[in-house]
């Protein structure tokens, strides 16, 4: 099967005047973790809903697992799992009851359902919460339950909309371990996030902003594109240096990070270190090239491109 898990061309979704998703192209291969990185309101949730067949696209074509969406959406329901951004299991039902309900709706036999539940409850560490109502659980516990519920029927493709927003860093690592376990078994995962560290773990990612797809590729490739454009400056009076740097037309952004000032230059500057030395000289600064981070990629992709 060479067909990608998700294929979208010129996918758009408008809400009246608002253009939530604007002509997005996607090719998401099977068996990978694909990330959507984007600020609030950038269209992550809307895109995921359109891919699941929950929202009819205003324009564009979508194929998921080889089926036309939304026309053939019913045919892929059993093969996809969806963990919504807002908790969508029943708060007045217990962990077990929620899972049993979804299992039977998904068409699992009683026995298969019980086995899957036992496996997942162990795997997601929900053993002590079996009889706890979902409404009485912490945010992180709920998200573990939601992930367990989304993968109960062993779907080929799982959509996770900001699955770790309420999870502490430690548990987030565990959570991602689970995702890699899933991928190892052949599952394709599309995950949206605000966190750079999570985005960096993805096999591939897309950066969304204002409904537009600003950049996509593997994290390494995205960062490599910025090679030679990121500079770190050490010295005194960094607040003033920052103001001076931002005044330069070649500088795209500057942000203080602890004792350093991190400066991102526009594309096409031959020797940024020499340029900055020359323009900011006389201040006794220590200037050197730095390894681009995903945050630099994000900043470069999402800052509005101005006239220059």
């Amino acid at each position, binding site marked *: 099967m060479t067909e990608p898990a998700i294929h979208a061309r010129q996918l758009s979704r408008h809400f009246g005047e608002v253009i939530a998703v604007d002509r997005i192209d996607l090719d998401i291969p099977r068996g990978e973790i694909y990330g959507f990185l984007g600020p609030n309101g950038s269209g992550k949730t809307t895109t995921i809903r359109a891919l699941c067949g929950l929202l009819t696209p205003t324009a564009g074509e979508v194929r998921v697992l080889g089926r036309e969406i939304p026309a053939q959406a019913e045919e892929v329901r059993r093969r996809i799992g969806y963990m919504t951004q*807002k908790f969508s299991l029943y708060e*007045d*039902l217990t962990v077990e009851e929620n899972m049993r309900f979804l299992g039977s709706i998904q068409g699992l036999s009683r026995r298969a359902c019980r086995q899957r539940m036992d496996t997942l409850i162990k795997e997601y560490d929900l053993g002590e919460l079996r009889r706890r109502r979902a409404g009485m659980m912490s945010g992180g516990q709920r998200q573990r339950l939601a992930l367990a519920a989304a993968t109960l029927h062993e779907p080929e493709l799982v959509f996770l909309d900001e699955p770790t927003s309420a999870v502490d860093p430690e548990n987030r690592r565990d959570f991602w371990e689970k995702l890699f376990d899933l991928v190892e078994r052949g599952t394709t995962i599309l995950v949206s996030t605000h966190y750079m560290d999570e985005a960096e773990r993805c096999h591939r990612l897309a950066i969304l902003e204002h409904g537009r797809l600003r950049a996509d590729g593997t994290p390494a490739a995205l960062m490599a594109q910025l090679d030679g454009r990121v500079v770190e400056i050490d010295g005194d009076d960094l607040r003033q240096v920052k103001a001076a740097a931002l005044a330069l037309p070649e500088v795209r952004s500057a942000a203080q990070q602890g004792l350093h000032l991190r400066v991102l230059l526009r594309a096409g500057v031959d020797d940024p270190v020499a340029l900055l030395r020359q323009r900011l000289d006389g201040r006794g600064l220590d200037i050197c090239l730095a390894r681009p981070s995903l945050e630099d990629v994000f900043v470069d992709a999402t800052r509005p491109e101005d006239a220059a």
Partner: protein
Amino acid sequence: MSALTRIGSVTGKEFRQLSRDRLSLGMVVMLPLIQLLLFGYAINTMVRDIPIGVVDLSGSAAGRVITEQVRVTQVVDIVAHYSTAAQAEADIVAGRIRAALVLPENLTQRVAAGDTVGQWLVDGSDTMVGSALLGLRQMPLHLEAGAPPGAYSAQPPSFEVALFFNPERRSQVNIVPGLTAVILTMTMILFTSVALVRERERGNMELLITTPIRPLELMVGKLVPYVFVGLLQITIILGIGWGVFGVAFHGDLFNLIVVTLAFIGASLTLGLLISTQAQTQMQAMQMTVFVLLPSILLSGFMFPYDAMPVAAQYIAEALPATHFMRLIRGVYLRDAQLAQLTPDLLWLLGFTVIMLAVATARFHKSLD
């Protein structure tokens, strides 16, 4: 097969949720209790012993029968007899009596011809008294006054005929079965009208519609628990009606269950339709009230169907409660058989099927 499994799991889930929702559970039990006691006592004391006079110009046996019929209603207290209508009018103006019943000289011929038998002169200044006496205007006096009883068996069951089988004319006898219609309308429509909206508001719907469940399965699964709720409520109502108000059930239990189920189905599916239309639970409740009010006012519970203006009768015909009111009074008070009740029964069943079909068609597995 898997469709049945899915319906079963939705039903099981609804039952669980209902059993944990104290407010709704309280409503299931308290609503019939409170309503029944309120209506039962309030209506009983509302219109009694209104002082009236009688002007019997015919002096016939029929005149005495009719006067007696009016007296035993206990709505009125006959305090005076007059020989001319003018005297009675004078006493009404003076406030000594609230109304007078005038029976004309040719009463016997009128009864034989099936004409209006007499005239009520009513002091309309007190609206309560006025409407109570207007209610008396509908009394099927001509029945008792000599018409052959067999002539009425072919008529559709109605308020008037039901009254005929309530010789003491105690209001509870009508109130108890009538209240089943009001209470079932209220709870059945309310419960299902929020059913889908609630899941939408709480965000459950977004998950539910990504599963393979079909709209019809979801609808039916959500209805089933409330069928039992409805049966429980009718048991409460009729139980109290019997225990507290002494309104015994003389009919056939099977018939009672059949007509009740038909009405529960109609109300639940109407609620579902509301649920597919409403955006919020608040809206769903407002729409429910929109149906509930005419159901209470026009179904024949408050005012006799035949006394309503034609336009109101048309509206009443479109309400499931009106049809159920006829059915339940028929089954409960007259021991009518299903064969005699077919039109209303079929109407309710047809309504149920159509509402379910429309609600299902209107429900889309999408967030658009």
